[in-house]
């Protein structure tokens, strides 16, 4: 075989393995009888390992710099043929790698975390199915297959969020998640249809060269609606925090690393389709999401909610980067974010898991996830503390960590951009970075460091099968992921020089943010509500502090309120309106439409009664009526 042919063969084979392995794990865990349910986690993790191997082979063969496209006919519809195939380019390769690795780690982690769960088989089936569909999105070459995987991902997230069915809020959250995704899907379908109507095909590579004759902006906005729903952007972000009701490994995999990233990946994939005006909308939405996410993260107490809002804000950053055209930078940030955010979630999961066991053994019951009841875990859970700090640092963009490099890449792109619009964006970006650092530090401080005295008794460290993935992810958030030189982001993934000013500014922001957060947390033994913490920090009397904190406080409480009352309100209102409208329509259906039918029936029987009144039984009246009938007939005919 010519070298090129066998590389092609290897790529196709590898991608097949990558795709089918998770599916196989899902099916396998469904088939394993209930008695051997402990076996399920092993087989699933093994299959995911196979998938990781496949991904490595795929990436090595495909190489990072050329795009390969293979497709076979799927079905012919109305003459023109709909094909199904795979498109492997740099971003797809990287995403495959990220998804498979994180998924494998989460599988391992869940083996420990979900050990005692009754329906563990259903959990692993859905986890496998999710990975399969996620890889489907990454690899598929045409929008129709991408849309199919897009919806299936939504479905599997619905099943995973609602895994613990008895919890009413879990059911509510899963339904809300699916509904939001569904509304996004409407946008996707509308976009698809416009594309099909104008370009006649779904194939991405062909679409790149096709113009949509003036429908670009509408198509782009439709697709952006879908992306916003999937990656929890501004209008449709409220489902992500609620989705925390699901098991933590699920949040780690789906709501940190992969699914929410799918939107960003799609945005990258069809970036060519977005005209400039659409890009401005994207940037604006991205920035707004970033800000609200970060501010909201400050206002919450539940670990997972804080991490969820941080994901929302990080995604906002990636969308802003894409909006500004920094495709490589956004993808890099996506890559790094996947690792450190998954790490954070797994660490949080570890905490929750252990404290649950402690609760069960000691009989005390309190909300494990609320940071106000936690504290002083530093000595009790050293490994978790270390992983938490590593990933938290990466999240906050501390130098020497991958977060810093990817944020710097975006920042430098923003600063090099022309026009005042990019300046404002840069400023907001920095503000978000600042807030990220503040809430991360606050989180770490209150969970691990504050009120040392709290006695936890002997808290068993989480089993190795959970610690290993945390450690891997912790290491993966260091700088070597991006490039050997901790301060430059050009490495194996992308090239580009960080402008000097960008690095300097980001370091300055990091230092000031650390200082402020250290200052105001030191005094408080327990974290109080956001406005409380921020507003009465009487130490921070310098103007910059006051200038920033009050608006941010208001902003965050505002967001919480908006979040609770308006967006959810709108949604609940919409749902409520739907139900009342449905009842009105139901009523119309019963009375009016049925009414007409019954009216006709009554009219007929009334007419019958009228005719029968002549049958009075009296013969002479019969003759009289007959005579009158004749007279009437003649009169009628005469006139």
């Amino acid at each position, binding site marked *: 075989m010519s070298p090129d042919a066998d590389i092609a063969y290897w790529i196709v084979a590898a991608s097949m393995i990558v795709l089918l392995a998770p599916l196989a794990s899902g099916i396998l865990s469904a088939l394993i009888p209930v008695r051997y349910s402990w076996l399920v986690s092993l087989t699933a993790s093994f299959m995911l390992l196979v998938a990781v191997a496949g991904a490595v082979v795929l990436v090595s063969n495909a190489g990072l710099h050329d795009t390969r496209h293979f497709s076979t006919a799927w079905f012919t519809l109305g003459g023109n043929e709909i094909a199904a195939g795979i498109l492997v380019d740099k971003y797809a390769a990287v995403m495959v790698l990220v998804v498979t690795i994180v998924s494998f780690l989460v599988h391992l982690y869940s083996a420990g975390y979900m050990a005692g769960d009754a329906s563990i088989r259903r959990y692993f089936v859905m986890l496998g199915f999710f990975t399969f569909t996620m890889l489907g999105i990454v690899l598929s070459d045409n929008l129709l297959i991408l849309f199919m995987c897009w919806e299936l991902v939504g479905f599997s997230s619905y099943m995973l969020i609602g895994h613990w069915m008895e919890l009413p809020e879990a059911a509510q959250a899963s339904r809300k998640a699916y509904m939001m995704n569904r509304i996004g899907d409407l946008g996707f379908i509308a976009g698809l249809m416009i594309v099909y109507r104008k370009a006649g095909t779904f194939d991405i590579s062909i679409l790149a060269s096709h113009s949509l004759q003036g429908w670009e902006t509408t198509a782009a906005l439709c697709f952006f609606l879908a992306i916003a729903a999937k990656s929890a952007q501004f209008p449709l972000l409220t489902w992500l925090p609620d989705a925390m009701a699901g098991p933590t490994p699920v949040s780690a995999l789906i709501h940190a690393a992969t699914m929410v990233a799918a939107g960003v990946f799609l945005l990258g994939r069809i970036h060519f389709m977005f005209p400039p005006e659409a890009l401005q909308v994207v940037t604006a939405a991205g920035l707004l999401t970033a800000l609200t996410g970060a501010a909201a993260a400050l206002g919450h107490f539940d670990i997972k909610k804080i991490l969820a809002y941080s994901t929302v804000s990080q995604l906002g950053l990636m969308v802003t980067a894409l909006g500004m055209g920094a495709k490589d930078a956004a993808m890099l940030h996506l890559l790094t974010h996947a690792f450190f955010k998954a790490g954070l979630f797994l660490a949080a999961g570890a905490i929750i898991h252990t404290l649950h066991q402690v609760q069960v053994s000691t009989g005390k019951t309190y909300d494990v996830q609320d940071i106000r009841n936690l504290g002083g875990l530093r000595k009790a859970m050293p490994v978790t503390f270390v992983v938490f700090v590593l990933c938290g640092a990466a999240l906050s963009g501390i130098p020497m960590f991958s977060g810093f490099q990817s944020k710097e890449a975006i920042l430098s792109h923003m600063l090099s951009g022309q026009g005042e619009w990019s300046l404002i964006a840069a400023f907001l970006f920095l503000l978000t970075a600042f807030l990220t650092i503040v809430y991360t530090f606050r989180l770490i401080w209150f969970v691990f460091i504050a009120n040392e005295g709290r006695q936890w008794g002997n808290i068993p460290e989480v089993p190795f099968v959970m610690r290993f993935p945390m450690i891997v992810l912790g290491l993966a958030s260091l700088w070597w992921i991006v490039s050997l030189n901790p301060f430059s982001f050009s490495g194996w993934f992308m090239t580009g020089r960080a402008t000097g000013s960008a690095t300097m500014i980001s370091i300055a922001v990091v230092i000031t943010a650390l200082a402020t957060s250290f200052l105001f947390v030191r005094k408080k033994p327990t974290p109080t509500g956001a406005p409380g913490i921020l507003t009465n920090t009487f130490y921070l009397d310098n103007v910059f502090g006051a200038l920033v904190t009050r608006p941010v406080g208001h902003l965050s409480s505002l967001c919480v309120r908006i979040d609770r009352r308006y967006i959810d309100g709108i949604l609940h209102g919409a749902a409520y309106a739907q139900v009342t409208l449905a009842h009105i329509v139901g009523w119309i259906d019963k009375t009016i439409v049925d009414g007409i039918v019954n009216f006709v029936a009554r009219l007929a*029987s009334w007419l*019958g009664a009228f*005719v029968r009144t002549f049958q009075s039984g009296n013969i002479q009246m019969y003759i009289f009526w*007959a005579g009158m*009938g004749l007279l009437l*007939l003649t009169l009628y*005919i005469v006139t």
Partner: protein
Amino acid sequence: MKIEAGLPEKLEWIQHSLGFFGPELILFAGIVVVLCVGIIIPSLRAGSGSSTPLVIGLIASLFACAVSLAGWNQETEGLHLFGGMIVNDRFSSWLKIICDVAGALTFLLSLKDQRKHVSEYVALVLSVLLGAHMLSMSVGMIMIFLSLEMISITSYVLAGYSFKQEGAEGSLKYFLFGTASAAVMLYGLSLLYGITGSSIISSQEFVEGLLAHQSLLLLVAGLLALAGFLFKMAALPMHLWAPDVYQAAPMPVVALFSVVPKLAGLAVLTRFVLAATAYGQSLIDWKAIVGLIAIVTITAGNVAALRQSNAKRMMAYSSIAQSGFLLIGVAALTEQSIQFMMFYAAVYFVANYLVFGYLQYFESKGVLTIPDFAGTGRTDPVAHGFLLAGLISLTGIPPTAGFTAKLLIFTGLYDAYRITDDSFLLWIFVPGLLNTVIALFYYLRIPYFAFLRDGDGVPAKYLTWTNFLGLVLVLTLLGLFFRPDGLMGWINKITFVL
């Protein structure tokens, strides 16, 4: 003297006319024989029941039917007998055949219940048949009036044949209403005679007289004459007697009333309307009048039957509605529509006798009003199956010939609309069809109660006379649906001088 010279030629001419009078003579002989038998056999004289007269009646009617069937093919173009009063064409002989078979079936139906004065009963029924024969053939006013009265008078007596209280009241009502309408008709006929000068309605002189005298009086005279025919057909203005008399008379007689006098009235009405429209030149649009009567009759008949709880009264209204459908054939008044009307008449007759047969079967088992049918469907599925087939045929739902009949009637109407393009035909088309839906409502009440309501059923065995008769009738209904061209082949020979 001129008169004497003509005498031998006239006598010879009468002898010639008698040749074509076969079926009527057979019926006449039947009546005489039955009466004699009634006197001779002692048991009959005492008025108690026996079945020999019924058998004689059966033989007579079937024989008459056979003769007119045999004479079907070489029928010449309607020849006028007895000084032009009688026209022996295929149109009338087709109706004669139906009436004879109806008579035969009436005798079969009345085989079961022991009836008082059996021989008189058979004589009266045979005379009804004879009257119907004469009426369907008669063109002369005298013969119309005479044969109409013959049918009516015998019907008055037959109506009271249950000899119960309701029988007496039924016959009284029938008599008073019948005589009044006969008098009205006679008055109309006399006026027509005055206007046209000739008493033979199909003669050229009558038609010229009509054309020469276009005036309001002609309309009134025509309507008064029409009243008598409508009475016989139980069509709208003159339908009031039907429910009460149907309720009073015994079941076989009711079956007879619903078919024989109606078809005879239809025949004479068709001839009258044909003559009155005088090849289309007459100013008065008789077709529109008949059309109006048809539609009003159908709607009134269907609607009145909706809330009916007595099976016989419901069938009375149903027969009123069906006569409306028959009138549609007259309203369209093309050669096609008359043939389709004949087909409809045949199917109506079969379906009606099937339903009446089974109503009698259930009446003998004590089921009188419709609610009494509750639950009988389960215990006697075969009988109800056949009854259902009959009712469905009356409604006009496909597997039975009723559908083809209605289809053809409306095709005739549609076709007449295409030729003449006068829009009143459309006014008949839509209500006529929608009435099928109303009709369904009450025709399905009996099976609805029988099958859907649960009650204590009626013990039944399957191999009974009625079921056998029912099977034959149902097979004819289904056969007519699947092979209508067999019957239509016969009917197509009915030619009409329009």
